[in-house]
């Protein structure tokens, strides 16, 4: 009689070969699901939602703005977790995953800032205001740029992973501030949470349903790009090792 298979530990996927094998089938599945759900969410939101009685058709920007802003913050949180795993357990895949997540998070932050500015102009009468949430988001974007630049500036991969992990810990303050700034400081123009589990929530289901779908879609876009990016980083690292070995052999 054979013993039942032992459940696989999460740490097994820190092995690059196992990660490549898992992501080989997970990546296409995630990419298709991301395209379908984002498509449904955005088409539903753009074509089939009514105008808001106060904001008119600009309310349709919410289907891009909120998912992008959510992913901008969540990408940094994911990088924080991966950086902590690197610092504590020295798993290379986690450091490379954090590196791969940074450009995705940076673009999500730009989309959130851009759609926010385009939305703010007609509703607030200004493209930009030094509101706590907007300002902390801008600083988060600068942290993304700094993080990407630091990875590129350091030749040794392990040293780069160490230093960027520390930068990621510091930047996490702004990732959290971006999410909670509207609650900490009430003097800003930016509203509080659009979605809430509290009774008497402000958003109608006509908007909430496509918004939730777009949020899941953006989340899956992030996962798909993260998997693809981490695979590229693992290959780049192996390439570097092979080239170094070639040089040593002459």
């Amino acid at each position: 009689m054979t013993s039942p298979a032992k459940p696989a530990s999460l740490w097994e996927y820190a092995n690059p070969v196992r990660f490549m094998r898992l992501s080989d089938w997970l990546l296409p599945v995630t990419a298709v699901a991301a395209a379908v759900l984002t498509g449904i969410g955005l088409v539903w939101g753009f074509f089939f939602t009514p105008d808001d009685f106060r904001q008119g058709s600009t309310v349709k920007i919410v289907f891009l703005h909120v998912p992008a802003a959510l992913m901008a913050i969540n990408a940094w949180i994911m990088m924080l977790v991966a950086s902590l795993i690197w610092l504590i357990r020295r798993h290379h895949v986690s450091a490379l995953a954090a590196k791969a997540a940074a450009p995705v998070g940076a673009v999500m932050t730009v989309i959130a800032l851009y759609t926010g500015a385009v939305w703010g102009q007609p509703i607030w009468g200004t493209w930009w205001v030094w509101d706590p949430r907007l300002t902390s988001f801008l600083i988060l974007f600068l942290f993304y740029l700094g993080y990407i630049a630091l990875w590129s500036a350091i030749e040794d991969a392990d040293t780069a992973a160490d230093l960027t992990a520390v930068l990621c810990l510091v930047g996490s303050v702004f990732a959290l501030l971006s999410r909670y700034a509207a609650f900490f400081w009430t003097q800003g123009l930016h509203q509080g949470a659009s979605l809430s589990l509290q009774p008497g929530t402000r958003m109608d289901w006509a908007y909430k349903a496509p918004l939730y779908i777009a949020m899941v879609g953006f989340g899956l876009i992030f996962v798909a790009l993260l998997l693809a990016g981490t695979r590229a980083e693992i290959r780049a690292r192996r390439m570097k090792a092979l080239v170094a070995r070639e040089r040593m052999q002459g």
Partner: protein
Amino acid sequence: MMPDLGRYAVEVMAAYIGSLVMLAGLVGWVWWRTLRTRRALEEIEARARRR
């Protein structure tokens, strides 16, 4: 088919077109990088096998 966006049509269209262009650019860049590293690694591995 196109919804009537009223006086905010420019802002809404700009938000959608700009965001989709950025998303497409990001996906294209990641895809290009994936293909480039895969090809380069295959070349190096083939060279290593020949040695």
